[in-house]
C-alpha cells in the first residue's frame, strides 16, 4: 500500500488545504468529471474540508449512470434468451431497466455472468460453442481498449458465437455539451486521470480556450485531488484557462497511443444517447462496419426497443452539475440504494450513491 499511502499523507493534505484556502478569494464552481473522483472526495471526507467558497459539483463520468435505458432493456431482452450466456461487469447488474434489472433476469433462470475482463467473455464463448455469448461493452475511454481487444481476439480466433452490446461514451464531447449549455454553471474542471492515461489530454487545450475554462487532469487520491484543486483555483483566480496535467505519474500529453490504435481499429465515433442527458453528437463509440458481425444488436432482434424516461427524478440535472444530490427532494426518502429512482443512486460510481453512502446524515440533521 506504500504506493497509495504517500498520496494520503494527512500532513500533506493539511498543507494543500491551507494553500487552497489562502488563494481562494471568490466563489467558484468546479466539476470533477469522474464518478471515481466524486467517491474519493466523499470517501475521505475531503469535500467538507474544502473552503466554503468552492462548490464541488459532480459530472456525468459514471459509465453505469449514463448507459441509456433502452440499452439496458436490450441487455435484459438478450440475457433472457435461453440460448444466451450474457456477461457483464458487475456494476451493471443492479441498474434498473424499464421493468427489471439483470439480477432479476438471473433469478428468473437467465445465464448472466459477472466478468472481471471482457477477455473472460471470449473464453466463455470458446468453452460454450453451443451458446451465444454476449458481452455488455459499456464505459468511457478506460474500458474501450480492453473491449476492443476482446472483439479483435474473437475475430483472430474465428469465434462465431461471441458478440458485444456496445454503449461506449467519450468524455470530451460531454464536457463541451455541459459548457455549451445555456444553464451551465461549471467554471473549472478536474479531468478524469484514468481516461487521460488512455487518451492523453491533447483534446483539452482547445476546449479550455474555446469556453475559457481551466481543465486540470487529476488522479484519485486525496493529494491528487487537492493538487488538481490548487491548480484549478490558481487559474481561476488569475483569469487563466489552460489544460494542465497534475497526474504526471500516469498521464502523458499524447496518452497511450497503442491503446488508442486498438480502439480505433474496432470502433468509430457515433452519436450516443446518455441516460438522463440525451443524445450528444459524436459522444460515443460504435463498432465500425468491419466488425458488424460482432454487434449483438445485429445478431438479436432488439432494434424495436424504445423507452420513455419518466420525469420523476432529477438525475439529468445531477449529471450536468446543475444540482447536487442533497438538493433532490427524493434523496434518501423515495430514492435510496434499495429503491433507486435513477442510475446515479445505483452505480458504485454514481454521485447520489456517494452521498447516500457517506453523507445522508446531512438530510436528517
Amino acid at each position: 500500500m506504500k504506493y497509495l499511502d504517500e498520496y494520503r499523507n494527512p500532513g500533506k493534505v493539511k498543507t494543500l488545504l491551507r494553500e487552497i484556502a489562502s488563494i481562494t478569494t471568490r466563489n467558484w464552481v468546479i466539476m470533477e468529471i469522474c464518478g471515481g473522483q466524486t467517491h474519493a472526495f466523499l470517501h475521505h471526507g475531503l469535500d467538507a474540508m474544502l473552503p466554503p467558497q468552492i462548490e464541488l459539483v459532480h459530472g456525468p463520468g459514471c459509465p453505469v449512470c449514463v448507459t441509456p435505458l433502452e440499452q439496458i432493456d436490450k441487455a435484459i431482452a438478450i440475457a433472457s434468451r435461453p440460448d444466451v450466456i450474457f456477461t457483464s461487469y458487475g456494476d451493471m447488474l443492479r441498474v434498473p431497466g424499464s421493468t427489471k434489472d439483470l439480477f432479476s433476469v438471473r433469478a428468473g433462470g437467465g445465464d448472466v455472468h459477472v466478468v472481471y475482463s471482457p477477455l473472460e467473455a471470449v473464453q466463455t464463448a470458446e468453452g460454450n460453442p453451443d451458446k451465444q455469448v454476449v458481452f455488455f461493452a459499456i464505459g468511457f475511454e478506460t474500458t474501450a481498449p480492453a473491449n476492443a481487444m476482446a472483439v479483435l481476439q474473437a475475430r483472430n480466433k474465428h469465434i462465431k458465437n461471441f458478440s458485444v452490446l456496445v454503449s461506449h461514451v467519450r468524455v470530451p464531447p460531454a464536457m463541451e455539451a455541459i459548457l455549451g449549455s445555456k444553464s451551465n454553471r461549471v467554471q473549472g474542471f478536474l479531468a478524469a486521470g484514468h481516461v487521460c492515461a488512455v487518451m492523453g489530454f491533447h483534446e483539452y487545450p482547445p476546449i479550455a480556450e474555446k469556453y475559457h475554462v481551466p481543465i486540470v487532469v487529476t488522479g484519485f487520491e486525496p493529494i491528487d485531488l487537492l493538487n488538481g484543486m490548487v491548480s484549478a483555483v490558481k487559474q481561476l483566480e488569475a483569469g487563466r484557462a489552460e489544460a494542465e496535467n497534475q497526474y504526471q505519474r500516469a498521464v502523458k500529453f499524447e496518452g497511450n497511443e497503442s491503446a488508442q490504435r486498438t480502439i480505433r481499429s474496432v470502433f468509430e465515433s457515433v452519436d450516443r444517447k446518455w441516460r438522463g442527458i440525451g443524445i450528444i453528437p459524436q459522444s460515443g463509440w460504435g463498432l465500425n462496419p468491419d466488425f458488424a458481425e460482432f454487434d449483438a444488436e445485429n445478431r438479436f432482434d432488439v432494434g424495436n426497443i424504445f423507452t420513455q424516461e419518466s420525469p420523476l427524478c432529477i438525475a439529468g440535472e445531477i449529471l450536468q452539475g446543475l444540482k447536487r444530490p442533497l438538493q433532490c427532494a427524493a434523496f434518501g426518502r423515495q430514492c435510496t440504494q434499495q429503491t433507486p429512482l435513477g442510475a446515479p443512486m445505483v452505480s458504485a460510481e454514481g454521485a447520489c450513491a456517494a452521498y447516500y453512502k457517506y453523507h445522508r446524515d446531512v438530510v436528517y440533521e
Partner: protein
Amino acid sequence: MNEFDFEGYTCPVPLRPNETVILGHGSGGTLSRDLLRRLFLPELGKAAPRALDDSAVVEIDGQRFALTTDSHVVSPLFFPGGDIGRLAICGTVNDLAMVGAKPIALTCGFVLEEGLPFETLQRVAASMQAAAQEAGVYIAAGDTKVVQKGGADQLFINTSGIGKIADGVNISGANAKEGDVVIVSGTIGDHGIAVLSAREDLGFETMLESDVAPLNHLVEAMLAAGEVHVLRDPTRGGLATSLVEISEQSNVTIEIEEQTLPFKPAVKAACEMLGFDPLWIANEGKLVAFVKESDAEKVLDAMKKTKYGGGAAMIGKVMGVRKSQVRLKTAIGGTRLVDMLPGEMLPRIC
C-alpha cells in the same frame, strides 16, 4: 459545437421492489435485513429485539440457554485456510458465543448433490470433527438428504447449536452504552477476500488465508476480564453492517477511526483494486465487542493472550448522542458515514 439544451432531460423510472429472491438477499446486508423484517418476522412471529442478535436466548426452569441455526453454501467447498465443514461448525459456535453462551452441542443437516465424491464428504466430516473438538462442543444429531444433480451445488450444510449462558452475563446488540470502547479481535476482511480469490482465481501474488475459527474461548477470556455489553461476529456484510445493526439496536452513535482499523495489506490492496469497501468484507473468525470504558484495557490485554485475539485493537467508541449512526474519522482528518452493505458486492467497472 452548437449550444446544447439540456432542458427536459431527466432520468429513469423507479425499479419496482423485487418480486423474486435475488442473490443480494443473501448478502447479509440491507436486502437480507429487508427480507427478514418484511417477510419472515411478520409471518413467523412477533419481532423481538433479540431476534436480531446472533442467537436467541430461551429460559428453561430459570436457566438461560442460547439457541441458533445457520446454513452454509460456500463456493468453493475448500478454500485457503478452511472449508465448508470448519465454517459450519465455527459459524454456529460463534453465534452462540456472541450472546455470551458456552456452546454445548450442535446438530448438522447435509444436503448432498447426486455425484458428490465420498472423498469430498469424508474430508468435510473430518474437518467438522476437528473444529468441534477445538471448540469443545459435540455433534449430537444429524440428517442427510440427497437431491438430483443440479438440485444443489455439491454440498450444503445446516448447523444448529445450543449453549448455556452463565448467571450475570447479559450480552446483546441492544446493550451498547455511551462511552463503550469498540474493540475488534484482529484483521478485518481476510475470509471474504480469501474465498473470493479462490473462487474467481484473481491471481493475487499474496496467498491470503481465511480466518475461520471458533471464538468461544476468546469470549470466555473477555468475559472473565471485564464488563462486555455487546458481541458480534461480523460475517456476511462485514464489520460495517454489524456496527450499523448495533447502532440501530442500541440507538447510539458509534465513531470509529480509520487509522486504527487493522487490515492485512493484501486485503486492503485487493479492495482498492476491485473497488470494494473492506468494511463490507466477510469475516469468519473475528468479533467486534463493546466494552465498558474502564474495563477496555483489561479486556484488550486478555484478548491478546488468546489464540484468536492476538491482533485485537481498539477502533472507536460510543458517543453521547442518541442517534443510530456510525461515523468514520478518515485517516486524512475528514468524517463520513459508514453504511450497511446494500446488496451483493459488485466489482467496479474502471
